[in-house]
């Protein structure tokens, strides 16, 4: 009996060991193949119209390209990171991966993503600005994704509330923070606030908008240590927010503790005349606002350096484990064309990274005026140093988010905020 048990354990161990050995052999399957291939493409499209548009694009490609067939699968934004970690380890990641630049650069650093720069057409490369390409380029110059759609932080405005308060709706190419504060003060009365901003997770919003004041936060070392500097430019936006909430009292301090979607009912119900959030929330406003609700998007928010925000584009990458990276990149090239990107952008109310696609959206949405400022806000997006700082995710969760939350709860001073952000980064080594 004991002998049988030992044999059983031995057999199981042998099976496991042989499994590991085989896996090691199979993992090295890079390179191109000739002949017909079927590639898997995991899309994270969420809105019904975007899901349908993605399927249309894949179907059109499949009927025109019998030798490169694409099999579409559906993933979800919430879990894509964990899913990819496991699939890369197991060698079963999809050939074509939909994600976002802030998530994929870690995978790229570990060698899981193919360099598709050499396979993309000049047309695709020229369509996207150099600044946005930087967000998908590794330190050693490999392009590991094509940037597709972008989001920016915009100010939504209830135009009826402006009219009722006798405040002019801001117009022009940009909206300065001072003008935002002035408008918010004029709109704050009768228990209603000028602005609601869901900043429960404040770090991303602050890091993105800080570029408007040249707030770069980090100096990226060439292979060495990345260093932090938290000066006046870096904290200019938090200062404005704090002042609006606790000096002007024109921003609801409660909204600062809520998520963006939690604050939306307050905007639709008239509690806030303005609402700051990702431009994609326009889709939710369109779907959920009462018929009588009149709204618009204000010009892009600008600091002393202009209406600049950090670009964190959605991306299309190719797994380094794919047997046909060249063919996969050909599909991405097709996916990136202006017609396809315009279709996808409108479904999600996002901004195409490609200039021709932005022009196409502008043309197709000329009867929907809110699109113009949204598209405008996408013209000044730039790569930000935090996207390349190796310890940023840990710093964000452990130090930046708690420190900003405390500052927005008025429980620490600006000097404390600067100190906590700096000391937190330095403690990570």
């Amino acid at each position: 009996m004991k002998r049988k048990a030992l044999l059983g354990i031995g057999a199981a161990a042998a099976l496991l060991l042989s499994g590991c050995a085989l896996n090691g052999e199979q993992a090295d399957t890079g390179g191109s193949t000739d002949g017909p291939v079927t590639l898997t493409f995991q899309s994270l499209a969420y809105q019904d119209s975007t899901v349908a548009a993605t399927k249309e694009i894949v179907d059109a490609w499949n009927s025109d390209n019998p030798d490169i067939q694409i099999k579409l699968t559906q993933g979800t934004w919430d879990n894509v990171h964990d899913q990819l970690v496991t699939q890369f380890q197991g060698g079963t990641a999809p050939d074509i991966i939909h994600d976002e630049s802030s998530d994929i650069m870690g995978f790229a650093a570990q060698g899981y993503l193919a360099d598709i720069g050499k396979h993309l057409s000049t047309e695709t490369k020229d369509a996207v600005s150099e600044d946005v390409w930087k967000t998908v380029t590794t330190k050693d110059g490999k392009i590991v994704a094509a940037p597709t759609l972008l989001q920016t932080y915009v100010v939504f405005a209830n135009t009826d509330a402006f009219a009722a308060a006798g405040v002019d709706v801001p117009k022009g190419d940009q909206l300065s923070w001072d003008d935002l504060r002035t408008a918010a003060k004029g709109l704050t009365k009768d228990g209603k606030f000028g602005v609601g901003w869901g900043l429960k997770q404040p770090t991303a919003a602050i890091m993105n908008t800080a570029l408007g004041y040249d707030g770069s936060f980090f100096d990226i070392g060439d292979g060495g240590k990345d260093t932090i500097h938290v000066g006046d430019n870096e904290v200019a936006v938090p200062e404005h927010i704090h002042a609006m909430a606790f000096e002007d009292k024109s921003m609801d301090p409660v909204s600062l503790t809520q998520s963006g979607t939690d604050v939306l009912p307050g905007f639709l119900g008239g509690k806030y005349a303005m609402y700051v959030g990702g431009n994609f929330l326009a889709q939710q406003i369109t779907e959920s606002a009462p018929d009588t609700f009149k709204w618009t998007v204000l010009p892009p928010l600008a600091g002393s350096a202009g209406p600049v925000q950090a670009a964190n584009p959605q991306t299309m990458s190719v797994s380094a484990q794919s047997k046909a990276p060249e063919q996969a990149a050909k599909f991405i090239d097709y996916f990136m064309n202006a017609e396809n990107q315009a279709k996808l952008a409108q479904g999600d109310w996002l901004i195409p990274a490609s200039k021709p696609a932005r022009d196409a959206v502008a043309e197709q949405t000329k009867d929907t005026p809110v699109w113009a400022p949204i598209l405008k806000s996408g013209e000044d997006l730039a790569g930000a140093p935090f996207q390349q700082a190796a310890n940023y995710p840990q710093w964000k969760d452990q130090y930046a988010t708690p420190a900003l939350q405390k500052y927005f709860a008025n429980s620490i001073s600006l000097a404390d905020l600067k100190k906590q952000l700096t000391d937190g980064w330095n403690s990570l080594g």
Partner: protein
Amino acid sequence: MNKQKVAPVRQARAFSRPLQYLGLAAYVVFLGFPLLFLLSTSVKTPQQLQSPENGFFPTSLNLGNFSAAISKANLVEAAGNSLYVALLTTVIVTLISLPAAYALARFQTKLRGIATGWILLSQVFPFILIVIPLFLVLKQIGLINNLFGLVLVYTVWSLPFALWMLRGYVAAVPVELEEAGAIDGATKLRVLRSIVLPLLAPGLVATSLFTFISSWNEFFFALVLIKDPNLETLPLTLARFVGAEGQVQLGQLAAASLLATIPSLVFFLLIQRRLTSGLMSGAVKG
């Protein structure tokens, strides 16, 4: 004299009984509230869900959420996959854990301590720690993207706790009952079939429910192991209603979730009558 003593007791009962019912009703509402909330949300329009005056009761009956949920999330096929996985896991776990629990509870060997330690230890490891090695093993034996692979994982995952639960139920069956059966001439098999098994029915129901519901609701392993849309289980399809940055199609998600809970409720209704206690009270008195 007696009448004087009984009257206050009756009065007290007449006073306390409505309070007991009230407490019970409040408890039932408390337990059922998530389901009622789901029902209420599932028939609201997006406008009502985003309205600041959004109360508990819907102002209109929007059944469009249900039709959208069924067509968009491929609910019927996903429910079939979930049912297959959950039922098969439940059957396998029950078939393995029943004799194992009996052996653990009754046989006094050195292995008992080791096995008990293993059961407890196996509960310590979090999902994320074992998922990559598990994924590699399943890939080698061709069970990635395969519902039976999921059954195997759920079986391994549920077995220790099911075994632990059932061992307690077996230990509670007095060994004297088995001895009495043996004295009356019953074989060991007959004792197990006619005495032990019927007394273990509530334990089997409890472990089956635990296994079924944990397999039915499991998300992460399914997310990692299943790639083919036709093999997706319900939790995977429900995740499609949640987007990036807190976006959620709440009405459709509630409708789909409500439909997804029905099979669990039916399964519970079918077997809950066996979930009784007190079968053995007084069995070995005297």
